[in-house]
């Protein structure tokens, strides 16, 4: 696995600790989806606290991964977007479209419990 995927209770926690090339990012996405299917996880948290750059390609991979997971019926929250990364993404004309986000792991886990996936998969808030 390119990024370790930890199963804690019914959820998967994935913390991206290294910069990924485009090819590695695609591999990451594939492995997350496979692991969600294999473990029948209730929810996943993707932690990007360690990512100091999220460019348009990585932003696309992250949102697509979360949206695909939600389409499969599992909840997904992206946590730990740094302030300077958020500013940069918005200035480029992108947020992380249609993806639930939270400040940190704690709040992400709380959000997984609250998020009602039946109300429009992929909607943030």
């Amino acid at each position, binding site marked *: 696995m390119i990024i370790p995927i930890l199963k804690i209770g019914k959820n998967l926690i994935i913390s991206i600790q290294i910069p990924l*090339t485009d090819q590695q990012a695609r591999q990451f996405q594939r492995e997350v989806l496979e692991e969600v299917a294999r473990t029948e996880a209730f929810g996943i948290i993707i932690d990007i606290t360690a990512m*100091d750059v999220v460019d*348009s390609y990585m932003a696309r991979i992250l949102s697509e991964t979360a949206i695909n997971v939600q389409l499969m019926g599992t909840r997904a929250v992206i946590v730990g977007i740094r*302030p300077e990364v958020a500013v940069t993404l918005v200035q*480029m004309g992108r947020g992380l479209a249609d993806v639930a986000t939270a400040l940190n792991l704690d709040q992400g886990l709380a959000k997984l419990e609250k998020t009602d996936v039946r109300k429009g998969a992929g909607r943030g808030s």
Partner: protein
Amino acid sequence: MEVKKMAILREEDVILARQLVRKMAADMTFNLVDQTRLATAVSELTRNAVEYAKSGEIRIEPVKNRVGREGLKIVVSDNGPGIADIEQAMTMGFTTSNGLGAGLPGTRQLVDEFDIRSSLGSGTTVTIVMWKR
């Protein structure tokens, strides 16, 4: 500080190039948001070089304007096929690859100065400048 140059040949070089630019910006005491903007802009531009041209080069030069304000000037050039319609390439959402089409227009939003020159058959050169705030 001196001019730095680096060849952009593989996907890994995209990461190395943006790390190099961030380091130079940090050494010049650019603030964290501007370091991140520059690193992200370089990530977009060098990706284009790998994606479309298979190889290119980045040149990073510390500069000063007439009133002594410091900045970083970055030139990413490739000898790829060139861009047929620059106006179209600068439109958000337009892409000929598997990207988002946010690369070039997004990059322009991040920097103070942006210049793109391209002609079919002779490659593309993008020059960006960010001034210290």
